């Protein structure tokens, strides 16, 4: 119905009685209703802490949270009491884990694809392990590595490892067999086949 109304308006503009223009709430709910919901939630939060007088360690009131956030963000990145210092560590852990996980995933993906017997025999376990929620391993990580860098890097690496591995294998499968035959017909070495045909062909699958 709406579509028809819009169409007829654009065809013979103003000839018929126009439908009333929808209000600003209807047109931009994300700029009007959504912020209202936020305000309502904050008020509810504040009321819950103020009226019920809940202790701060159970539910801190919104104004305390805001104060702590401003205090944490306004410190220098070298101040251990500030947020930036810890955010930098987290970013470093994430980057390191991502680099290790994707490098290992890509390498193992190549190995498992290049020797199909390996790929076929390992694939069920890879799929099984991939469907395991990695967060469930977090307590184990803490036991193995403590609260330091290693555990976090390890879990990031595991999370990135599987998608990269599976995409690498899919990318390898998707290399046109004729490209491989072309290389073979020219007596290409395995290394040349890998670096000049397969890896460039797989780049699309990994990107």
């Amino acid at each position: 119905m709406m579509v028809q109304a819009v169409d007829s308006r654009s065809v013979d503009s103003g000839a018929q009685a126009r439908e009333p223009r929808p209000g600003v709430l209807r047109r931009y709910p994300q700029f009007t209703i959504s912020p209202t919901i936020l305000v309502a939630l904050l008020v509810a939060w504040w009321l819950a802490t103020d009226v019920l007088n809940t202790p701060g360690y159970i539910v801190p009131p919104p104004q305390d949270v805001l104060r702590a956030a401003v205090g944490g963000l306004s410190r220098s990145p070298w101040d251990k009491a500030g947020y930036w210092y810890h955010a930098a560590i987290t970013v470093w852990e994430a980057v390191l884990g991502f680099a290790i996980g994707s490098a290992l995933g890509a390498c193992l993906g190549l190995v498992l694809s290049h020797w199909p017997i390996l790929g076929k025999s390992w694939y069920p376990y890879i799929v099984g392990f991939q469907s395991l929620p990695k967060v469930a391993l977090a307590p184990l990580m803490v036991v193995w590595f403590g609260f330091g860098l290693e555990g976090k890097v390890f879990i990031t690496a595991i999370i990135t490892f599987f998608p990269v591995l599976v995409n690498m294998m899919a990318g390898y499968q998707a290399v046109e067999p004729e490209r491989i035959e072309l290389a073979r017909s020219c007596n290409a070495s395995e290394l040349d086949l890998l670096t000049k045909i397969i890896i460039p062909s797989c780049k699309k699958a990994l990107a």
Partner: protein
Amino acid sequence: MKPMRAADSLDTSTNRAPALILARGLSKTYITASGEVTALKSLDFEIYDGEFVSVIGQSGCGKSTLLKVLAGLLPCTTGSVELGGKPLRGPTPEAAVVFQSPVLLPWRTLVDNVLLPIEFRKLPTASYRQSAADLLAMVGLTDFAQRYPFELSGGMQQRAALVRALVQDPRLLLMDEPFGALDAMTREQMNLELLRIWSQSRKTVIFITHSIAEAIFLSDRVIAMTARPGTIADVITIDLPRLRALSSINTERFGRYAAKLRSLLDAQGGMF
């Protein structure tokens, strides 16, 4: 028009130069999950230096398998293949393959695609740049040397693939339905161009096709194959004058060759 059987041509080979390719009892059996499939069964044939030979047959008659065996990409199950008097074991620089699709690498320029076999064979690319440029000029692609494959039409891409095969200066060109994906007009142009290149370079060509007209137009001899298992039904010598033009398709002799080939292929219960 005297049809020449494989066995007959063996007799006449005594007064010719030794065959470039000599196949004896060539068979290829694939072992699949559902059992053994015989793709080629006891093929005997020889191909002489400078000859243009087409292989024609239905889809699935093992033409492509034959080409892969001759390229050294597949080992034959039984029998033997000799190339230039030496048993064929794996791919050699003496034979170059032109595939059904151009198989140009999209991340390389045309000239870098052409030089790829040189890189694979660990030869110095610098000393092949001139011959690559000459060959690209021969097929009219000089202006496109630094372009990427997607900027070229299908016919131009296939010409580049032909140049990539020729840059290694092989004795033998193995062509697997190279113009099958092109439109009819481009295909005719490519056939003419291939004949011109062949007459200039004097390579030996083995040309797989399922077009009867294309096979007769291009070839000195046509090997007609039966399907499943692939065997040689007959070898027909095309005794038409060289310097062929597209108009030679309309001659009576051409028509007789076509009728002969068609009846051979129809006898296989083919789809022609």
